[in-house]
């Protein structure tokens, strides 16, 4: 169903995701010049090609499309990927967390009750690899294309069906994968920018979170029942 001879980047633009994944790291300018369809999210000046640590081109395209569907560009913030959330996820999965640091990984690996929590042998990196493949397999069956190549409304529908557990992935829990995807997306959006997401503290500005230094000993009195008016600061602003 997917014509692998066509470079993924072209499809990305076709799907309306401006300036995202350049798998080869080539200047995306010609692609960005293509006219996006009506449903396209607002392109943002911060969007630029990313260098990926662990995600392959298909995965990078998926993650970018997924986080931009979960957190789209609007008048509150640029899209999640423009805020660095896809980069955040790539770095997290490439690092200690993604490699299963602090995770008990002795067998036997048996299927448990939901009450018993995560019971797979997969590291987070491999879990996302499997989840992305399962999602694309399902959207190809259902919508005729990989997730990132779907129109925005179809991507929203796909995620909603996953969230509700209605998406019937082959041999994989769509609901569990959705929850993992949503959790890491929110971590990337709201964590300190030193991890690659929340660029220019866009998420913190959005909700009115001042970040650091968070030493409010006097402010709790000054700003009692009052809006705090200082611009946010990151860990990087204190080094």
């Amino acid at each position, binding site marked *: 169903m997917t014509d692998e001879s066509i470079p993924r980047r072209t499809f990305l633009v076709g799907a309306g995701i401006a300036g995202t994944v350049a798998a080869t790291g080539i200047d995306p300018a010609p692609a960005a010049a293509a006219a996006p369809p009506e449903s396209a999210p607002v392109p943002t000046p911060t969007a630029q090609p990313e260098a990926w640590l662990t995600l392959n081109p298909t995965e990078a395209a998926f993650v970018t499309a997924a986080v931009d569907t979960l957190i789209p560009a609007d008048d509150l913030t640029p899209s999640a990927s423009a805020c660095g959330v896809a980069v955040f996820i790539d770095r997290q999965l490439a690092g200690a967390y993604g490699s299963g640091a602090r995770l008990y990984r002795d067998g036997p690996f048996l299927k448990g009750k939901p009450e018993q929590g995560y019971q797979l042998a997969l590291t987070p990196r491999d879990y996302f690899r499997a989840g992305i493949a399962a999602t694309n397999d399902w959207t190809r069956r259902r919508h005729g294309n990989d997730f990132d190549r779907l129109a925005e409304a179809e991507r929203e529908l796909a995620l909603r069906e996953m969230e509700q557990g209605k998406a019937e992935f082959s041999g994989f829990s769509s609901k569990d994968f959705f929850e993992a995807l949503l959790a890491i997306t929110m971590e990337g959006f*709201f964590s300190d920018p030193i991890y690659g997401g929340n660029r220019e503290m866009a998420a913190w500005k959005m909700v009115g979170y001042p970040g650091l230094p968070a030493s409010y000993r006097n402010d709790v009195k000054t700003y009692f029942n009052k809006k705090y008016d200082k611009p946010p600061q990151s860990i990087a602003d204190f080094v």
Partner: protein
Amino acid sequence: MATRLKEVDAVMVGMGWTGAIMARELTKAGLNVVGLERGQDRIPGNDFMLPNLRDELRYAARLELMQDNSIDTLTFRNAPDEFALPIRRFGAFLPGEGVGGSGNHWGGLHWRFLPTDFRIRSVLAERYGASAIPDDMTITDWPVTYDELEPYYDRFDKLCGVSGKAGNLRGQIMDGGNVFEGPRSDEYPNKPLKSSAGALLMAEAAKSLGYHPFPIPVSNSSAPYTNPEGVTLGGCQYCGFCNRTACEANAKASSVVTLMPVLRADPKFELRTRAFVSRLVYDKAARRVTGVVYTDLRNGEEYEQPAGIVVLSAYVFGNTQFMLLAGIGEPYDRATGKGVVGKNYAYQFEAGAAAFFEDRQLNSYMGAPGQLVCIDDFNGENFDHGGLGFFGGGYFAGGSGGSPPIYGRATPHGTPRWGSEWKQATVKWYNHFVRFNTQGSVYANRDNYLDLDPTYRDALGRPLIRLTYNATDNDHKMSRYLLEKLEGIIRAMNPTSYEMHPRPKNFTIVPYQSTHNTGGTMMGSDPKSSVVNRYLQAWDAHNLFIQGASVFPQQHGYNPTGTVGALSYWSAQAIINQYVKNPGPLVHA
């Protein structure tokens, strides 16, 4: 073969709160003490510094200060007929690791149990008749009373610089404090923290309904404070990061702040980190533990550390595991009800609520847990249980603040969890909500216990602890009752909207609920029904003293740390005044 080291007077297995208290008391009495800690050292001036401490991803999401599950974890199942599976990553509860233990990342809420909590089985029998206590509810009286522990509660309060307002000072009921508490011999060392705007709304509503609101007692010093050890704590910065993170201001009390500076300077104390104790060396005939065996994680060498006194000061699960592995005391058998080690595991049954206030600016990111206001009207035996169909209770706390944005956001029920509509709602509500919690008791039940897992092992090849636990009908009824009363308070606060969050039927290992695990090596009045006596001395090994919440016979409606600290001071006093002079059983069975 383990290399045998030179004998010391006392060895601590674990260097969190109780290891540090005991080490300090014993070195002060002239004993040479070695503290073994399997985690890393944690030094505030180096490890807990700005700006990096204000990192919600690192500490709250990636759990930097918690026990490493890849080295050691436990298995879990809801019921005895299920197959237990390992907790591969902690969720419902978060035991700490390294010097300071869970005391580095606690929220600091610092409570005493009620005088009636210590005699709970007798009190229930007196008030409702012995037959009213269900057969499967295996609660017991504590072998120590509130009055006996009070001086030690007071010592621990002063070590930590607890901030609060007394409600019962030497029998005199004091307005503005907790009027239900047992008599205190002294006022709190520090004044309460400044209550949050949301907390004051709750206080006003609670008062209008005839309840007795007061500022929650907390181990964050509200002002700079020098404790009796001569260590100075800073004033709370209201940063909002207490839970899961340490404190750069040295305002939140932990053993690394309040005691370790003194111990580190004491030649009678030696700290060995990355020392993973694998077992106790038990001489059953002599009824003594002659020492402990540990693996130095830095070089893989195994050592035997002989000691005159052995103090088990690990977490609840580790303490119980050491006893079961060494065969000290009879393991609990759920089928027959006989045996004691692993019996009466209990937990905290917390359920909460959120209320949204469109027109109030509540600055969710500022603050400390100590800014909460609470009521204790529905805790323990503070209210009549006649006709209610359950026993137990808990305090209610509420307030705004202390909610960094990864985990601290709240939107009203029914709001989408993603997309533009979610963003708009998040912006609208992030600084406009109040959170509530009911800190419910868990009265021990026959079916909730700890034993050794038959399948899964830790990094040293030892069987993991197996946790069999589920919420009981009693606890669900109790919690529903508390939420009903809480809902009345919330309504009186007149919010734009609110929602109650009852617990699901089954206990689940995710998401986070509470790190108030208790029991497994319960204290009691005789060796048939308990593992340690009233001085925390093991009935079957007189030089072994077990510290921490593993000795609780059941869990009451309060955070456990205040009682954990008091019990350690009480136990230390018995060791110094009695045991050292005349080693042997302090209570004759």
